[in-house]
């Protein structure tokens, strides 16, 4: 859909076509701060992490650490094989959860506290369980902070990664 559209660097004067959303997309169904309740739970679909995912991620990030790229060396390691980059798991998690939930009216991703607890290996199928644990008003009346607790589970229901993320979510305009 966006093929051929060059937005140029941030703050540049590149003209956007008229149909291109200039600011926040106001798609219907985005959930505002007031509509999100503490205790809501979400579960994502599963996704099988493949060798291709790891190779592409190494190329994209530039992280070619042997943990992710040297099959021979890793065969002799405690993991017995190459493992996915921790941040690949974190990024796939973000994508999986976005497929599981009605989107929030998110203004910004504020931060996270995250633990890598176990390896994600080639062929593992991961999914995400998440729960809204806190909502906090901020000094700005048009937004609030939503905290989600998230877990990545593998096909054996082992928690491979877990943590909390903070999102700044728009309030419904009065």
């Amino acid at each position: 859909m966006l093929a051929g559209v060059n937005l140029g660097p941030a703050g540049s004067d590149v003209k956007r076509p008229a149909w291109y959303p200039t600011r926040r997309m106001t798609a219907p169904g985005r959930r505002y701060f007031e509509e999100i309740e503490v205790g809501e739970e979400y579960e994502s679909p599963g996704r099988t992490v493949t060798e291709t995912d790891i190779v592409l991620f190494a190329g994209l990030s530039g992280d070619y650490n042997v943990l992710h790229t040297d099959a021979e060396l890793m065969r002799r390691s405690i993991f017995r094989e190459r493992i996915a980059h921790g941040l690949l798991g974190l990024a796939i998690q973000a994508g999986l959860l976005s497929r599981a939930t009605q989107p929030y009216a998110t203004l910004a991703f504020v931060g996270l506290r995250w633990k890598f607890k176990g390896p994600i290996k080639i062929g593992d199928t991961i999914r995400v369980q998440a729960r809204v644990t806190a909502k906090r008003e901020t000094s700005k009346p048009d937004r609030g902070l939503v905290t989600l607790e998230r877990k990545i589970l593998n096909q054996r229901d082992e928690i491979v990664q877990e943590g909390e993320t903070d999102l700044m979510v728009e309030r419904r305009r009065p």
Partner: protein
Amino acid sequence: MRPVSRLYFEDVVLGETVETPAMTITEAHRSLYEGLTSDTATEPGRVPDLLALCVATGLGWRTARPALVVLAFMGLEWEIVQPLGVGATIHGRSRTATKRPLREGGFLVEEHEIVDQRGEVIQRGRFSFLVSKRPTAGAA
């Protein structure tokens, strides 16, 4: 040929600042990242926040300092200070804040910042790692 030089737990100097080369985040990065992960930017024309973090960790391997022998990435505490537009050029800056020897290997906490072409901090936080100790003589 000389063997690749590596940095072990014992070699890590507390407080020493390490700077990475810079990289321009293009539409190709954004597109590949979004296709691979299905994680997207909050607004059009922006770099997904986690993509900047992923690129910064890759840049971290391209410093003058030899590569650290990482056994495991344990976790991170991370703050997104401001959004990044496609076309921005970022680099990383880090220093080791904590060093604790374990029976096998050692535990490190590194403070990291992602800085853009204006010198402004875009994201920052702390990474914790389990790293290898220098192999004793006789071992490979």
